[in-house]
């Protein structure tokens, strides 16, 4: 059992366990908390897979941004009865059946793919490349190829300069920028305070 496999199992277990915890938690705040942990563990998995930029992005945007928003929403709406709404048992059974069948379809497929991963160099990716470069064994000299940093290449890919391993993504990047702008405007519009024809409050009531 290599160090890399250990790390993977730890993080994978964390991600899956907390994902399950999200499903089974009744309290919505707890759900959010488990979700944070699950997503954080996923970020760790990304680091482990050599995707350092995406991992940092996952932390920054997903965990730091999106989930804060979610928790914010939870707090705005978490009042008394709505903190935990029970679901009927029948629905649980139905969902479990459907989810189980989906899992039953997905997992064998995943297993059939790339059945015997063959990498002898189970180094920790994304970290301390220098030490590996100087390693005495000859195998390690091919290592940087799999672990070289991705941020620059991703950046170049996003501005439309295809490099080895990426295609040009300028158009999707622009499209998504516009999309974000539209979403921001739309969200601000949706959540704007409604101007209701309210009766004028008496001064004493205000105080």
């Amino acid at each position, binding site marked *: 059992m290599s160090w890399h496999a250990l790390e993977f199992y730890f993080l994978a277990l964390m991600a899956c366990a907390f994902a399950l915890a999200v499903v089974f938690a009744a309290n919505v705040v707890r759900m959010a908390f488990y979700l944070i942990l699950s997503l954080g563990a996923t970020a760790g998995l990304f680091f482990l897979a050599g995707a350092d930029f995406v991992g940092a992005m996952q932390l920054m945007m997903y965990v730091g941004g999106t989930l804060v928003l979610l928790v914010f929403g939870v707090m705005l709406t978490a009042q008394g009865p709505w903190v935990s709404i029970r679901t009927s048992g029948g*629905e649980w059974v*139905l*969902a479990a059946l*459907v*989810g189980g*069948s*989906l899992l039953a*379809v997905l997992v064998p497929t995943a297993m059939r793919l790339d059945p015997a991963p063959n990498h002898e160099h189970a180094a920790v990716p994304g970290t301390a490349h220098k030490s590996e470069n100087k390693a005495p064994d000859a195998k390690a000299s091919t290592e940087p190829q799999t672990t070289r940093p991705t941020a620059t290449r991703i950046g170049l890919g996003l501005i439309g300069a295809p490099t080895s391993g990426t295609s040009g993504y300028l158009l999707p990047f622009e499209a998504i920028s516009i999309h974000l702008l539209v979403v921001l405007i739309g969200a601000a519009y949706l959540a704007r305070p409604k101007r209701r024809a309210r009766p004028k409050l008496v001064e004493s009531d205000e105080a």
Partner: protein
Amino acid sequence: MEASVLLPNLLLFAWLLPLASFALILFFGPRMGKAGKGASYVATGAILCSLVLSLSALMVWTGRHGVWFDEHESGSAHAKEGAHESSEKGEPVKTKHAKNEEAAAKNASKAAATTAGKNEYEGNWYNLVGFGKLKLSIGWYIDSLTVIMFVMVSIIASCIHFYSIGYMHDELHEVTDHEVTLADGHHLHRPGRFHRFFQYLSLFCFSMFGIVIAGNIAMVFVFWELVGICSYFLIGFYFERKSASTAANKAFIVNRVGDFGMIIGMCALFGALGTFSFGGKDGIFQQVRPGMVDGDEHGHALRVPDGMVVAAAEKSIAAGQTPDAKQISAWRNSGLGYGLLIVAGLGIFCGCMGKSAQFPLHVWLPDAMEGPTPVSALVHSATMVAAGVYLVGRFYPVFTPEVLLVIAIVGCITLFMAATIAITAVDIKRVLAYSTLSQLGYMMFALGVGGWVAGILHLITHAFFKSLLFMCSGSVIHAVHTNDMREMGGLRKKMPITAYTMLVGCLAIIGAGLPLVAGLSGYYSKDAILAQALLHRDYNKTFAALFYIAAGGAAITAFYMFRLWYMTFSGKPRNHHCYDHAHESPPVMWIPLVVLSFFAIFVATPSLSDFRNPASGPLVNMLEQARPPGTLAAQTGAWAKVTIPDEHGSHHHDYHVPAGLIAFCTAMSGLLLATAIYCWRLVKPEEVKQMFGPLYSFLWGKWWFDELYNLIFVRPVLAIGHAIAELDRLGIDGVINGSARAVMGFSNWFDAWIDRTFVDGSVNFMARKIFGLGLAMREIQTGRLRQYVVLIVVGTVALFLVATFAIAR
């Protein structure tokens, strides 16, 4: 940086700044400052920046090409060619040319170092379009003439912008126009149009610069029309006045007549030569004067371009065959194509006639005085009307001697006719307008008799003193609120600065100076014109009358200018109301006058080291650098018996001394006559009027040109128009209306039936069916989110199973 890079860029910005100012004022004008006062600062700032940039361009130019050199440095080839021609003819110009060659040798090394044989820069900023041969581009053609024009226009325009800030201040607030009476008997009240005035001025400057910098005739034409439209706006600035709007229309329409000729000329040039551009390897100039760049054995002599020869010999060419050089040469020698060249030249000149108000298209300019006076000073004396002269100068290489003869004759008629009308005019601005006409005639005349530098020099000097004169008159009008000289008199004491600056202008325009010693700017240009005319007379005895008319015109010029000055500023006040009201103008108005009088005095001054030689001034030297090829040799027409002499011939002692004396005598005689009548009162003007009754009424009626045009053009056109309108109304409209009514009647009935039966029927049927379907389908939509999710997942699994088991097998 290289001059070839610097000059276009400097001038580009000088050119575009007024456009930027125009755009700014167009969009933000009314909001600029109080009542749009900021617009004047924007426009003035823009033109001042243009002035600075033009001056920088001038510095760049003089740095690269020198200015104090002797006149022939710019092209030793010109001198050589001139010497060659003169030795053939044995004319008295030989000594002068010997001197030229000496000077050229003396400065040869310097010239080689600085000019390197290149005296113009040309290129394109932007190609608008290219269809086959046709290339429309925004390009530049810069030689010393361009630079001088830029400086001249920007100086005068700056002065006029300043002047206008003072002159137009009435427009800053609500204006009551006393010359417009509405139907209810009241005078017109309208908001001020201060910013709009400056907006037009900026656009005008932009257009004028555009003409000057243009690198091809198509671009010239575009800006030519822009200048026309600016003129239209500015003349019609008080468009509520009937007279102003009529005058604007008149200017526009008369210019169209000229432009029509210009289009013909452009068509002739493009059709035969396949290009619009001036310079360059296959530009117009190079094709007409093939020796210009490569310097082959033809020298700079005029040669009918191949394209024109081929075009003229079209009938002799079999289809699909391209004639070889020998064939073309034979055709050329037999005279083919020469007529086309003349047509092209005359066509271009037609445009110039319209813009420069030459006989017979001169009628618009006096009426254009309806515009505000700064407009008259800028547009109708110094720049726009000079554009025609400029274009003739620019196109000089293309003109054959026959065309030049036409130019000379037209110029001569114009100068004489306008001068005579000016004698009787009593409106101060109209006197100046006719004087402008007359001076433009002088310029055209000078160009026509081969005096290229003389004509262009007069263009520059005239621009300065005529704008000065106009602005002085504006100052007077501003003071006394009338244009009529009979109401003025004795204003010298009230407004001394205006009076004396105007005196400077008058002296400059009559070419005052000590003969053979020195004088004001007009002295040099007018002497040069007369000397050239004298030389021309010696070559062409048939057309000797031209010289005498021009010399006589000089006397008349002196007479009417001083008539104007005396009537306005000296003697006793005739209208005490006006007199008491009068006052000196504010500094913002008189400072430009002083600046311009400085230029009116000194702009053509010769160099101090060679003071006796009128052709040694920096301005003249710079113009010599732009001298078009072929003007340093006498050239004879192939059709008409006319010889256009070499211009340097007139610099010879034998010509410029008598010419100077003649000019002095004529000017003095006119001045003395004016003084005798209007100052000393030896003769009463009224008596003179009585004595020459018919002549007076002929002149008072402006040679009855307007009536003539009315009779032969306007009335018949109106009559024909009315007839056609009647035909249209009765015949064509009747048929169309009748058929329309019939179709409508039929379709009303048919439409209703079709619509009810088919269209409505099918639509209603579809609607019913879809409504039923919707009723059935609504049951599927439960609105329960989680149910949808489950369905999606089930669907996914099902798809997967189908894909795995059904399709893969």
